[in-house]
């Protein structure tokens, strides 16, 4: 808005804006800016009485109407303005009018109309740069790269400015990178630039960067080098920037030695640039893998690649190159006077590692360097992540040898207390990295955990004078202790360890409440314990918002999706969608801003980033989960569900999403490093399975597996809304069928549902008839529910929707031959079997909280879909009003249907009551919860067992600490610590989850009873 006012600024008395007197227009803008829309509307109406055919005045009115929440009226005024612009040749067509119109149309999601206004105006005034620019922006908003290019070229021809040519070149690059343009287009862009340079040269560093990138994209490295080292190279004012590009180009060209020399120069200026050192060494060893077979984006973005492919290299040459590197590194080390420059010392390790990979190294030497690196930087928190790579080339025995040496050093050195603490932490981490966790005796792990907690407590005085907002010394120790305690639980199944982990972290948060790592671990621990509301509380405490919703919310989303916390879930899903949709709405404007400020590389980045977010797996999932949640919440009211479905064109929108997913590959933007070790990816939680050796399981493999499985899961979810709609609709069609002389319902609807069923079955790995046979077998008891494995819900969904299809298809007899599945009966029996199976498993185990989500899902998904279908059936059987007793000519099918529906409703009531009884029993049991008992014994006994010992350390710390030692703030926190509060809250929240599930169950029973009553009228 301010830019509009800006356009008005400077207009003197009698000035004109959009063909109207400026003095009349300004107050309107002022009113809009100060949100006095009523006043603005009054002013604009007055203006319109005098200028009824002014497109600008109309645009202003539309803008005000849109702002006051009247989109339909705003659109119709926009259309009127557009019509005037198109039909009335004398109407003023200026950028002020069009950009105002564009703002409104953009907000109304009618880009196309704005574009056509600009297109019309540009055709009328082909040399008007303002209008062309407006048109260009419209094409940016529509991602119409070809049209952007054509418009930019027009502007270039009109004004001859370098920037417009670059806009065209960017548009060409976008066609190649994000559109369907072939790489040959790059040649065209190169030609355009060459021609311009020959007459005008280049004047902006970004223009040079684009030119070089363009040549690189075509692998014309020599040409790019020539440009860089020629006159144009002086456009880059910073030597290092230039050298970076030069080194990269030389390496890509295969001139490794020359490239290495360039990287040497950079390292002399920036001795701590680790990435540069890796490039340097790679080039010395002529390792082309760093540069070859990478897409141009990778090259430009300098993305990390595996550098362990040592090329074939003659030994003597290898020696020469390595000794050059060694000599250079030595020089760097001598020059570096700062304690903070790590790269030259880490370089020794890297050289030794390369030697080992080449078959010439000496692991003792590597160990020696590691020990040296430890003595220099062992106190730093990043030490272990620095050296992780190098431990991988050592054998288990060598690692133990290293650990021995490190332990000796850490004992012998005399350091200040902070550094000493840092080193001790590093040693703990080092131990974790060097030993195979599976082989460490439980007692050793327990000792470590206790030692960590003790060390944290002992070092509290070090943080005495720190501000509460500053990181405390030794904070990491509690996270590490938690990791060890969780490991102990996994190995021993002693729930006390989990509770000890909770207490340790909550203790830490009592002392300093800002530590996100503690909160994150607690979030996962509470989730595991089934205290979903506590987990969500911790998630909220992390203040995840904006882009973090995309990268961090995976920590809570899967759990909350299957919890009864529907309000919180709804908020989470809505916040996420709002963030994404807001970004998609404003992203093009920001791209326009980058164009305007001539930051062309950002133009490309913005467009690619938007695409990346648009293809986000989470974005696809959340879009479908929100309506599914709303359907679940309203499953007792089929009319409400129909309204919900209408918003997504009766679920067809999600079938469209499926097609979109087919044409693009999903992106995975989650930052998995924020997750604790026991659940490295959302679908995996080691704690829910028995103890196993995971030292050989790489997170990369898990991620790969997830990337393969998740799209299939999302696809299945996307099918649901449409299937729900079709099944409900089918039932209503049945009504039509019944009344319309018993004719068959709309065959299109039926065939669509059938095709979706086939698709759904395919996701389960079977053709539909086979899948139904399996379901039939389970329903009739010849196979166990266990054959469904983890996809139980999907199998039941399939049965439910197939039933809906078959009931309406009037082809029961015919299909019975093809499918080993008994309509109604099998569905009822299947639902019951699944539930009973679950309840039986739980009654022999204490895993109630971990199984609760599945029970809830069974009750709120397949069962709810089935209930919706039942409701629709009852609607046709018990028509409302006077028609109640009137029956159609298709009446003959009703008694059969009525009896099937009645049986099904009663069967559902039967086992829902069973579930209700069972849940009530658990609610009572939860009063005397296992966890609570364990904790009570832990706090009452003297600390003989592990979890108790942890508690004892904390208790002793609290009782022995003094303000003089730890300061008033920490002392106050220690005093306020109340461990029993945490345990009692866990137990209370577990109970609350049971109660919420029970309440959903009871409301479902209520709804079913109502249905039963209705069907009784037939």
């Amino acid at each position, binding site marked *: 808005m301010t830019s509009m006012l800006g356009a008005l600024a400077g207009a003197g008395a009698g000035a004109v804006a959009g063909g109207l007197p400026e003095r009349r227009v300004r107050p309107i803008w002022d009113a809009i800016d100060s949100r006095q829309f009523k006043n603005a509307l009054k002013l604009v109406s007055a203006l319109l009485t005098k200028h009824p055919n002014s497109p600008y005045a109309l645009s202003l009115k539309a803008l005000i109407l849109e702002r006051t929440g009247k989109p339909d009226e705003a659109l119709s005024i926009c259309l009127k303005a557009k019509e005037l612009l198109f039909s009335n040749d004398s109407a003023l067509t200026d950028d002020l009018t069009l950009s105002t119109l564009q703002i409104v149309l953009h907000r109304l999601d009618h880009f196309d109309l704005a574009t056509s206004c600009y297109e019309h105006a540009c055709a009328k005034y082909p040399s008007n740069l303002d209008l062309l620019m407006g048109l260009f922006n419209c094409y940016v908003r529509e991602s119409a790269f070809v049209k952007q290019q054509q418009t930019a070229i027009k502007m270039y021809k009109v004004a001859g400015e370098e920037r417009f040519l670059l806009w065209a070149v960017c548009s060409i690059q976008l066609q190649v990178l994000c559109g369907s343009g072939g790489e040959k287009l790059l040649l065209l862009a190169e030609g355009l630039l060459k021609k311009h340079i020959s007459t005008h040269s280049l004047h902006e560093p970004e223009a040079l960067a684009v030119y070089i990138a363009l040549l690189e994209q075509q692998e014309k490295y020599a040409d790019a080098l020539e440009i860089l080292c020629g006159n144009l190279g002086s456009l*880059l004012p910073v030597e290092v920037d230039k050298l970076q590009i030069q080194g990269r180009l030389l390496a890509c060209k295969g001139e490794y030695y020359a490239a290495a020399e360039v990287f040497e120069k950079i390292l002399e200026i920036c001795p701590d640039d680790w990435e540069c050192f890796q490039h340097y060494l790679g080039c010395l060893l002529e390792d082309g893998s760093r540069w070859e077979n990478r897409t141009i984006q990778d090259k430009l973005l300098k993305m990390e690649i595996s550098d362990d492919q040592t090329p074939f290299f003659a030994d003597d040459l290898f020696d020469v190159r390595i000794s050059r590197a060694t000599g250079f590194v030595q020089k760097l080390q001598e020059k570096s006077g700062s304690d*903070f420059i790590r790269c030259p010392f880490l370089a020794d390790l890297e050289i030794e590692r390369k030697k080992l990979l080449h078959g010439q190294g000496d692991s003792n030497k590597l160990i020696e360097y590691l020990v040296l690196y430890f003595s220099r930087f062992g106190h730093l928190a*990043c030490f272990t992540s*620095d050296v992780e790579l190098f431990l991988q080339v050592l054998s288990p025995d060598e690692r133990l040898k290293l650990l021995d040496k490190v332990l000796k050093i850490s004992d012998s050195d005399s350091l200040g207390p902070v550094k000493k603490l840092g080193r001790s932490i590093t040693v703990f981490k080092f131990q974790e990295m060097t030993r195979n966790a599976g082989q460490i005796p439980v007692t050793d792990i327990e000792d470590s955990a206790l030692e960590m907690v003790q060390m944290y407590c002992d070092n509290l005085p070090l943080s005495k004078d720190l501000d509460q907002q*500053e990181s405390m010394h030794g904070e990491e120790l509690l996270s590490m202790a938690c990791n060890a305690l969780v490991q102990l639980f996994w190995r021993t199944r002693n729930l006390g360890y989990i509770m000890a982990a909770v207490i340790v972290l909550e203790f830490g948060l009592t002392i300093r409440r800002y530590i996100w790592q503690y909160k*994150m671990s607690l979030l996962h621990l509470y989730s595991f314990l089934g205290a979903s509301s506590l987990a969500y509380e911790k998630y909220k405490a992390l203040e995840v918002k*904006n882009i*973090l919703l995309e990268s961090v919310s995976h920590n809570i989303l899967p759990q909350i999706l299957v919890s009864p916390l529907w309000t919180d879930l709804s908020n989470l899903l809505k916040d996420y969608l709002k963030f994404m949709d807001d970004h998609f709405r404003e992203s093009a404007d920001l791209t326009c801003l980058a164009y305007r400020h*001539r930051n062309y590389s950002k133009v490309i980045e913005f467009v690619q980033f938007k695409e990346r977010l648009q293809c986000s797996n989470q974005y696809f999932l959340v879009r479908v989960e929100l309506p599914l949640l709303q359907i679940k919440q309203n499953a007792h009211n089929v009319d409400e569900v129909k309204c919900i479905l209408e918003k997504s064109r009766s679920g067809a929108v999600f079938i469209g999403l499926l097609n979109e997913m087919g044409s693009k590959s999903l992106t995975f933007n989650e*930052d998995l490093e924020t997750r604790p070790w026991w659940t490295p990816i959302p679908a995996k939680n080691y704690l829910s399975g028995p103890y196993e050796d995971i030292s050989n399981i790489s997170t990369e493999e898990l991620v790969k597996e997830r990337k393969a499985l998740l799209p299939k899961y999302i696809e299945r979810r996307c099918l649901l809304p449409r299937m729900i709609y079709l099944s409900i609709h089918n039932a209503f069609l049945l009504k039509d069928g019944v009344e319309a002389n018993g004719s068959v319902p709309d065959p299109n609807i039926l065939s669509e549902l059938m095709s979706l069923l086939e698709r759904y079955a395919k996701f389960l790995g079977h053709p539909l008839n086979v899948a139904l046979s399996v379901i039939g077998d389970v329903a009739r008891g010849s196979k166990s529910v266990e054959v469904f494995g983890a996809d139980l819900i999907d199998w039941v969904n399939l049965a439910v929707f197939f039933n809906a299809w078959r009931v309406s298809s009037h082809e029961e007899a015919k299909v019975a031959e093809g499918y080993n599945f008994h309509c109604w009966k099998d569905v009822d029996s299947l639902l019951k079997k699944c539930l009973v199976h679950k309840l039986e498993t739980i009654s022999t185990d204490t895993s109630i909280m971990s199984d609760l989500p599945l029970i809830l899902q069974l009750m709120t998904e397949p069962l709810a879909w089935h209930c919706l279908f039942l409701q629709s059936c009852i609607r046709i059987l018990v028509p409302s009003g006077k028609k109640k007793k009137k029956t159609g000519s298709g009446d003959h099918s009703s008694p059969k249907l009525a009896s099937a529906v009645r049986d099904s409703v009663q069967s559902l009531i039967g086992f829902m009551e069973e579930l209700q009884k069972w849940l009530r029993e658990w609610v009572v049991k939860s009063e005397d919860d296992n966890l609570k008992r364990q904790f009570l014994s832990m706090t009452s006994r003297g600390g003989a067992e592990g979890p108790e010992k942890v508690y004892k350390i904390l208790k002793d710390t609290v009782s022995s600490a003094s303000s003089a030692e730890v300061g008033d703030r920490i002392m106050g926190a220690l005093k306020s610590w109340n461990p029993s509060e945490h345990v009692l809250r866990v137990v209370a929240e577990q109970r609350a989850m049971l109660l919420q599930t029970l309440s959903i169950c009871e409301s479902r029973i209520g709804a079913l009873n109502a249905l039963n009553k209705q069907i009784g009228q037939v």
Partner: protein
Amino acid sequence: MTWAGAHRLIRTGVATELNRGWSRRDCKSETNTAGGRRKMTSIRKFRCEDLLRFASVNLDHLTETFNMSFYLTYLARWPDYFHVAEGPGKRIMGYIMGKVEGQGESWHGHVTAVTVAPEYRRQQVAKKLMNLLEDISEKSDKAYFVDLFVRASNIPAIKMYEKLGYVIYRRVLRYYSGEEDALDMRKALSRDVDKKSIIPLKHPITPDELEYD
């Protein structure tokens, strides 16, 4: 961009910063593509995709996660003032975002936010990032000074800025959400030969008296 967002304090482990805000108003200043003298740690320009990787830095309670248009506006207008420090293994150590603005002798670099991940604190990462921004302001944009705003209560941060050569130029009353005062700290660059830009003001000012929003 919400005002509430801009008014929150951002900080690093040791030090922290935030500017008063940011305006959608089109700035006429020219952006110059120059890098800075990158010393030590791998420091490179911030890219959009880093937004998906900075969680471990931004989950820190005082590091504000702004809305997208805030970040992208900085990237679109002042990409040379937005840098990220990376450690071995491509881990994000911290980042700095800033801008250049003003007219005549008040043409200056501004630090909007600088933050460092807990794992990399007490290693001078913030200092390196600050030096880089000062370098760009000095050499590429020929600015007269660099300034920043800090909560008056954030003593560790103020101390760190003082160590880096910043002085308290003035106090801005109730700058943070109308509650806490901000200190406007400045460091003169070589173009300000007489160091006029850093002569402290005698009286505090109110937010509406600020030259730039």
